[in-house]
């Protein structure tokens, strides 16, 4: 395979079209937000385009940093939970026969392909105070009053894990699939026990998949809006909710933009760092994705 060096003039028209599309619909809108974050909210919600850093000043106020920290913390917790639950699932799929594997993947994705809001609704009808779970428990006489599962932090975790699990399983599964299981056999033949094999042989090789999967899950979680609202009882907010409130309720579009920029910048830096790290590790032949 010839090694190609990418120069701008080498780009075929199809590449240009795609690039233009990305710039117009993804970069440009973001730049608008960025620009707006330096503007001022004039009387009653309109924007006056005078340059100011006041919005960022406000954004770095302790309160909003706490909200950001809370968002990161909860997303991290949910991601880790997804890992703990998702890894065995991915492992099972990787070990299964090809037919079972396809079946398993299909099963995994069907819930994902039903409507998001319906899934939320479904969770409420099972785990709510008068949902199936509590109804059953109370009917069986195990307890008098319902167990509070939803409208708590746990409810948020529940919703997040439920929604994002498939996204985590697939990259881990991909990595596991590529892993040569005879290595495991070899290790055990050489005297390593199960746990050692797991931590020293299996895990390091699937680290990539885990990392990718975690990223694909952690970042969208940070922007979650509906789940903390409905399943968390709106008692704890994610940064996304505060952001949207600025646009709709407070009509302070510049400040909202500042919050959005802060969040995005942070995420983008994290992603970019991750990719550079990966590329450097894997060498010049990697696409940067796997």
């Amino acid at each position: 395979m010839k090694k190609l060096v990418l120069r701008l003039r080498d780009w075929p028209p199809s590449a240009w079209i795609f690039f233009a599309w990305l710039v117009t619909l993804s970069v440009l809108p973001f730049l608008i937000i960025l620009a707006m974050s330096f503007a001022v909210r004039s009387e009653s919600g309109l924007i006056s385009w005078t340059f100011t850093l006041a919005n960022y000043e406000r954004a770095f106020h302790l309160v909003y940093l706490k909200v950001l920290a809370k968002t990161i913390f909860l997303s991290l917790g949910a991601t880790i939970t997804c890992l703990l639950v998702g890894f065995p699932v991915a492992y099972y799929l990787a070990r299964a026969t090809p037919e079972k594997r396809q079946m398993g993947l299909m099963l995994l994705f069907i819930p994902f392909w039903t409507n998001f809001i319906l899934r939320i609704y479904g969770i409420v009808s099972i785990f709510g105070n008068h949902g199936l779970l509590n109804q059953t428990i109370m009917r069986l006489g195990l307890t008098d009053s319902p167990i509070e599962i939803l409208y708590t932090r746990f409810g948020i975790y529940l919703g997040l894990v439920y929604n994002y699990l498939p996204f985590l399983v697939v990259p881990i599964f991909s990595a596991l699939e590529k892993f040569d299981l005879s290595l495991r056999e070899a290790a055990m033949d050489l005297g390593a026990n199960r746990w050692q094999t797991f931590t020293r042989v299996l895990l390091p090789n699937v680290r990539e998949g885990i990392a990718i999967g975690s990223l694909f899950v952690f970042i969208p979680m940070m922007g979650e809006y509906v789940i903390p609202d409905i399943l968390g009882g709106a008692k704890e907010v994610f940064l996304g909710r505060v952001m949207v409130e600025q646009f709709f309720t407070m009509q302070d579009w510049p400040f909202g933009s500042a919050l959005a920029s802060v969040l995005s910048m942070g995420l983008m830096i994290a992603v970019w760092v991750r990719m550079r790290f990966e590329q450097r590790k894997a060498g010049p032949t990697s696409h940067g994705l796997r």
Partner: protein
Amino acid sequence: MAFAKTTNPRSTPPESAAVVLPNNIFITTMFWATMGFLYLPLAYLVVQAFLTDPGNIASGFTTDWVVALLHGDSLWEPLMNSLIIGVASATIATFIGTLGAVGFGPFSTVLPPSLTALIMLPILIPEVITGLSLLLFFLLFRFELGVTTVVLAHASFSASFVYFIMIEQLRKLDPNLGEAAYDLGAEPGQIFWKVILPNIVPGLIAGWLLSFTISFDDFLISFFTSGAGLITLPLKIYSLMRIGFSPELNAMSLVMICLSTGLVMVLWSKEQSRKWVISGS
């Protein structure tokens, strides 16, 4: 992100290994427990569609709600809107994403990380920010909010999904195919339409279906970009949910769950039969 992995001979455990190292109980239990967890809410929604009183599992069986849904008209317009938007945005996304994969594909090994990051941007950025930024974008350029804006919004990030699927698909394509055709006298146009395109159809279909699903399912982005008078199905469901008791909603869930399941099974069986055809011939 491959949609469905085809098997890699190296990683399929040889028959003997399957016997030597069986899946332990823990793994199997976790798998099925997780599946149970994922399906329980949906299964219950389906059951609720047939309950006389959806809030009470002990109440009787009835088909009233399903009938009411089929005769009522409040959910059909949102459904139609969602379908049209889904089809339109999926098609556009597939087209653009494929173009991107075809364009950048040969260079995929040397793409600078910033460019890859750019392509991944629409996927990674949280939906709230995408939705808000597109709303501002449309506002600034005085686009009237409606079907067009929602379609564009959905396609904007679906295209990147398609891109990655198609890159994967192109990678599997035998690079000599194009050259062989060229040597045999085909022109670039013919090469594309008659040699390359048919071989990437599975990726196209997967990409299209993924984009359609994302669009059909989408809530947040539609919420921001739909403007006046355009209700998509998820938005309608959301507003119904907030009012509370709506047995038709449960009936609708039943319909939609059947639809999704059916869709996935069709896709799965297509994939299956294709493999059988290939392995058999």
